[in-house]
């Protein structure tokens, strides 16, 4: 499924592969989706979009832990086309 976001004629569009884990996957009823965003877009922009457009998206926190391409990133991190964005519930490993 693809969600589009504020696409004007002058905007470049990027597609981000979103992944959800543990409680987030349970709440959203899915563990991944493709998200289209107008560039430039940060992780925070992607989270805002997911929270407003997904069923039960409001159950995601406004400032979740996030990883891009399997590395922890701050919410200000700029997304690039093809990135894998993962939203991580509070970690409980070890």
């Amino acid at each position: 499924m693809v969600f589009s976001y504020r696409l004007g004629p002058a905007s470049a569009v990027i597609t981000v592969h979103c992944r959800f884990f543990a409680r987030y996957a349970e709440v959203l009823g899915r563990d991944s989706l493709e998200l289209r965003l107008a560039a430039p877009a940060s992780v925070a922009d992607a989270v805002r979009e997911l929270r407003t457009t997904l069923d039960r998206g409001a159950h995601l926190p406004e400032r979740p832990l996030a990883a891009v391409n399997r590395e922890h990133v701050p919410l200000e991190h700029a997304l690039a086309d093809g990135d894998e964005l993962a939203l991580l519930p509070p970690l409980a490993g070890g």
Partner: protein
Amino acid sequence: MSRLVTRDPIDVARLTMEISDAGRGGTVVFLGSVRRSAEDGPVTEIEYAGYEEMLSRELAQILDEAHARWPNAACAAQHRLGVVPVGEPSIAILAAAPHRAAAFDACRFIIEAAKRRLPVWKHEHFENGTSQWREA
């Protein structure tokens, strides 16, 4: 070398062999086990779920960081995923060094970083058939 992530019981003896060397006189092993505490209620089992590709990558990076800080130490780590019975370790961290201070410090560094950074979550199953994700 052992995999960093496993779905089998952690073989601590084998990991210890991997980092043993006649020049390293001090070895410190940390085992983190599934704990059943009073507030948990009747947990029958705990399932560890992970973002596996990132978990391996992050654990490897933590080991690299430890190696940079303690070049004389040999370190190993393994995280178990899937159902882990109460009492069995879900994570093992090992550090061997010529002197014990470095072995203790490297082992502690790795487990603290692992707790803070590894993308792993616990799914608790209760006797009444319900289950929930435990927030750390």
